[in-house]
């Protein structure tokens, strides 16, 4: 399957559009998303949400990605994009349920997935998780048309809230859907179940050393 034949989705999604997606769907993304990789950023976001304040870049019903962004740092606004790349979302497991519910996100993404508490929050509000291929910066960056805005400039570049305009970003995989299905939970459960058999297959193929 070539990338050009994949279905395209425009962000932000409506909750209904998010709920229509199924685990395993492969798509390209267009439209607007906000990205950061910062732990301080997301802690600050949680504080703002809990205090009932709006974020400086609107994220309500929007798409929020765990992704690093490098661009020309002009005085008043972001310049040319150099590259983007996802980071590990599970680092933010403890913060994401508050952000998903508080901002009523309809899409999130990065790599590595999110834990069950986030899956539950995503099911409640109608939100999907997209898996991006880590280390595929050369191709993923081609799907970013521009960094259109940024906020919290007191933070280093990849920790700011960076608003991106996407054009054919991906391919990305729906790894957690809005109906409570998670590839990550399913694969971990299945791997744990296989462990006794895997250990048996190791032992049967070779004689092992004995304690002397």
């Amino acid at each position, binding site marked *: *399957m070539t990338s050009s034949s994949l279905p395209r989705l425009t962000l932000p999604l409506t909750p209904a559009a998010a709920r229509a997606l199924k685990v*395993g769907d*492969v798509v390209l993304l267009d439209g607007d998303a906000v990205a950061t990789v910062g732990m*301080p950023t997301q802690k600050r976001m949680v504080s703002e949400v809990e205090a009932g304040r709006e974020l400086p870049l609107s994220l309500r019903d929007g798409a929020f990605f765990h992704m*690093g*962004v*490098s661009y020309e740092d002009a005085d008043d606004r972001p310049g040319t994009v*150099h*590259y*983007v*790349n996802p*980071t*590990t979302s*599970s680092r933010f497991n403890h913060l994401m349920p508050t952000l998903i519910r508080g901002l009523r996100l309809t899409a999130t993404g990065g*790599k*590595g*997935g999110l834990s069950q508490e986030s899956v539950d929050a995503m099911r409640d509000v109608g939100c999907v998780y997209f*898996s991006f*291929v*880590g*280390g*595929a*910066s*050369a*191709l*993923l*960056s081609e799907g970013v048309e521009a960094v259109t805005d940024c906020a919290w400039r007191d933070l*280093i*570049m*990849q920790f700011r809230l960076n608003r991106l305009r996407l054009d054919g970003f991906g*391919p990305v*995989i729906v*790894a957690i859907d809005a109906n409570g299905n998670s*590839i*990550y939970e399913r*694969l*971990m459960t*299945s*791997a*744990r179940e*296989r*462990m006794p*058999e*895997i*250990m048996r*297959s*190791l*032992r049967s*193929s*070779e004689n*092992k*050393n004995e*304690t002397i």
Partner: protein
Amino acid sequence: MAITYDLVKEVTANLYDWSLRRIPESSKAEFRKALATETEPQARQTLAFMLDSAERAETTGKFLCSDAGVPSYSIKIGSGARMEGDIRQAIVDGFAELTRTIQPPLLRFVTNPLTNERSFHGKDMPLVSWDLVGEGDYLDITCAPKALGGGRWAAVEILVSPSLDEIERCILEIVLRAGGQHCPPVVIGVGVGGTFDHAAKLSKDATLRPFGERNPEPMVADMEERLTRAVNQMGFGPMGVGGATTTFGVHIEYASGHGFTPVAVSFNCWINRRTRARIYNSGVVERIE
């Protein structure tokens, strides 16, 4: 003649730069092999996308990953090597100059662990290990910068008088805990024995061994093959979204030790970042990988 400050500064900076823009040739061959055997459609698509992106990075000079990692060098010193000037400082200065001039610019990723301050510099940066080897008249330098995604899952467990079964179970449990989080398909490096620090270093060295090279001891080589199969039976697959290609290979090194046996496991993400060169006393620089 001697190996000079200027030469080490230039070569170590270049190795770091090159490591950001291409995957090793032996990795590319493994991707092609996996594409011939992997049956899950999403896994195949992910593998193809990875290979395409790596080839694109190589031809355009773009970065493979936005996380340029903690710069780290493994240096093997031949006993016949003659050095001139402050060779450690040459690596520090080469890295500092590179962060000022490299295009596209690097993001700030070097982190002070006590204050969380991020910059392009920091205490003990770059990380360098030095080993004395054989009689060669060279420095053999491998640059393998470590990013967060693959770096955070490494672990050392210390077992007491374990059987081989218990060692293998320990390795597989560390791998299971990491799941598909480390940007698979990864190289898994294992160090067994020695001491806590030595086992960790062995596991890192094991990740740097090229594909296709098995441990020379048949018993260890057999262990590598069985554990490679076992890891792939777990089913995490490329990028952890399912499939039979979680690891391209488990590489094992061991050392004799005491009754306490450290078991260390480290992971190298699919871009398997490493470049290697030798600098000879004559001033000749040989690019190895």
